């Protein structure tokens, strides 16, 4: 999600928080990605589910922000997701309505609110109640696991990071150390083979065919291989010219040609497999960068300063019950804004720069902080008005 250019001279002069967001650009990007990825991939997945009589299965995690864009700009995308859910071969995954870091706040009320908002959205749109949760950027720690379990979920998805597994394999279902919650761990190397490396010509696996990939999977040990990736992998990160859609089209056939392989949704996965062991994660992990922690969003003091501004606004805002301001506050919580401020090392920094529209993290900070200052002023003006 992109913000408008906002200088210190705009602080205190904005009429509506709506102006923070570069709605034209956001719409344009959404429109482009919808045409290149969401619509064609949904259609292909639906065909594959039909073709293999429901043996091919997928799970989706859709934010409320994404759904709002669909509803507003291209409702047919929602229709196509509804068709997929109707096949019965698709699980929907719960997450926070906004792509936020609310799970890292000192107080988890806002996190729970955002999860419930998402829950209602899934109910309204798809008449569906998710059983499995995955947090923004697969962020996970014991506290989050506890909260999610307390909210009634049966499973959670996070990264199969080495630092939590050590010698153990991500190809089993685990259990959270402090609560009765099944944990599905992303197989990052096989997932990233598609997500990152598919079209990388210097990679030994290139070119990746469905047959080769199915063979790799068949040779791997364990109960389950969890493949999770950005949906934009199909048609956006990997363009149609790379052959990504052909790959996907042939994958079910090649996988199902092995007797010991089949597909499951996340719901089926936690029903079918008993946890083999427990995982203990006192400090938050995620699926991002080499570090697999939250330093991508909270790695430097500038990010912490913005994060704190946001967090501190919560209690003030919630007392005031101004829906428009609360909505703006939540959109400002989108983790992207902090991601653009990352000053992390060369390798990762390059990835950040690739996705960023700012010249450098400092510009990202200035813009975001200016907006937060303006927003803070709007909130306190609102309080004065009410008093």
């Amino acid at each position, binding site marked *: 999600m992109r913000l408008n250019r906002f*200088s210190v001279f705009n602080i205190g002069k904005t009429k509506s928080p709506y102006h923070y967001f570069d709605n034209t650009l956001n719409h344009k990007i959404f429109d482009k990605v919808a045409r290149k990825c969401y619509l064609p991939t949904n259609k292909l997945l639906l065909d594959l589910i039909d073709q293999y009589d429901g043996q091919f299965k997928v799970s989706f995690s859709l934010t409320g922000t994404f759904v709002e864009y669909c509803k507003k700009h291209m409702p047919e995308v929602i229709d196509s997701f509804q068709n997929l859910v109707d096949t019965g071969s698709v699980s929907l995954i719960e997450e926070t309505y906004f792509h936020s870091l609310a799970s890292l706040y000192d107080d988890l009320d806002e996190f729970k609110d955002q999860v419930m908002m998402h829950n209602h959205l899934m109910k309204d749109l798809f008449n569906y109640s998710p059983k499995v949760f995955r947090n923004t950027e697969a962020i996970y720690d014991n506290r989050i696991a506890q909260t999610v379990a307390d909210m009634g979920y049966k499973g959670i998805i996070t990264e199969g990071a080495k630092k939590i597994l050590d010698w153990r394999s991500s190809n089993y279902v685990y259990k959270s150390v402090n609560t009765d919650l099944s944990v599905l761990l992303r197989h990052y190397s096989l997932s990233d083979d598609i997500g990152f490396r598919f079209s990388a010509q210097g990679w030994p696996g290139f070119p990746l065919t469905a047959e080769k990939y199915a063979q790799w999977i068949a040779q791997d040990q364990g109960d389950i291989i969890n493949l999770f990736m950005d949906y934009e992998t199909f048609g956006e990160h990997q363009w149609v010219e790379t052959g990504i859609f052909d790959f996907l089209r042939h994958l079910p056939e090649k996988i199902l040609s092995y007797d010991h392989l089949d597909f499951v949704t996340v719901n089926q996965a936690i029903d079918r497999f008993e946890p083999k062991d427990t995982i203990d994660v006192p400090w938050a992990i995620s699926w991002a960068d080499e570090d697999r922690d939250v330093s991508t969003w909270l790695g430097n*003091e500038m990010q912490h300063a913005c994060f704190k501004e946001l967090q501190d606004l919560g209690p003030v805002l919630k007392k005031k019950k101004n829906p428009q301001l609360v909505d703006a506050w939540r959109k400002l919580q989108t983790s992207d804004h902090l991601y653009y401020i990352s000053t992390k090392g060369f390798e990762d920094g390059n990835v950040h720069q690739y996705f960023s529209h700012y010249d*450098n993290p400092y510009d990202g900070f*200035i813009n975001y*902080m*200016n907006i937060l200052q303006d927003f803070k002023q709007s909130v306190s003006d609102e309080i004065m008005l009410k008093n």
Partner: protein
Amino acid sequence: MKVAMIGWEYPPFKAGGLGTHCYGLTRGLADKKVHLDFYMPKTKKSASADKPFLHIKEVGEATVFPYDRPTDKELEGDFFNSVYRYNDLVVSKVKGNYDVIHCHDWLTMKAGIQLKEKLNVPLVLSIHSTEYDRSGWLSPNQWFIDIEKEGMEKADRLIAVSNFTKRVVVEQYGIDPNKIDVVHNAVYPLGSGKKQDIVLFLGRLTIQKGPEFFLDAAKKVLDYGLKTKFVLAGSGDMLPRLINKAVDLGISKDVIFTGRLTEEEVKHIYRIANVYVMPSVSEPFGITALEAISAGTPTIVSKTAGAAEAITNCLQVDFWDVDEMANKIISLLNYNVLHKTISKEGKREIDLFTWDRVADRTLDVYREVM
């Protein structure tokens, strides 16, 4: 290896980045056991070398300087002749068995070409600025351009201080890009001092350096209500105009013109400045940005500066965009955490900009032509 380097300025006497560059480069090369004779004009305070492989050789009096314009009053009429005279002097004085002749910028290019032919030795030419930069791209003088073009064509290899400058050399002078290597500048880190409420401009007060944009931004920052002084350190032909401008803008009590500063004063002001701004209209590199950053001073550089392509931990603006310049100055002053982070990361990055690296890259170029 033995190199004859034809230069113009050398500390303690210097007016710009050219002198800083020659100082760092010659010492860096001497450390690598390159025998280096550095030829330069006689100055009031003689320069001396502090390295066994490095010798400073004074050629004789010169009455022009690299940043002079033919329109400057005292030189009137005699400008072109003094240039020719000094070049002839250099040609007659440079003697010995050299492997490479290395010249910097337009002033000694003619001598470089003649020496190449006379001694039958390859010529390397460093481009620190072109006539287009010095004129701020407003009516560049054809006489300089012709000298520069001839030098660039006849040199065996060129070193440009940035890709920005390489592009100018290719596009404006029609030089084959394959003949040009880019070597970014370096700095001897200054170390930081206790910061004061100073936003600093440091450089010649000429059209090229964009001091009037600095004043426009100052006006906006002061109107915003921030309490800080704006210091313009340096001298130049725009000084009277800038003083008038500060008065017209009503900000003269918060603007300080220091005139030309000594080496020590320059170091001091870098260390105590809170923000450094380099709003150059056209800047091949801008060593001052490296110096300021090495002193822990967050730096805002013009996007049309070579430094902008080389340094990650600085802020960048279009030199004409004074609103954005003010936005960034205010942000640096108001958001402590931004100031702190950029200062810290900048200092860390600047440690990579060593003269040792510049000497290595330059040696590569020498080896290519030998």
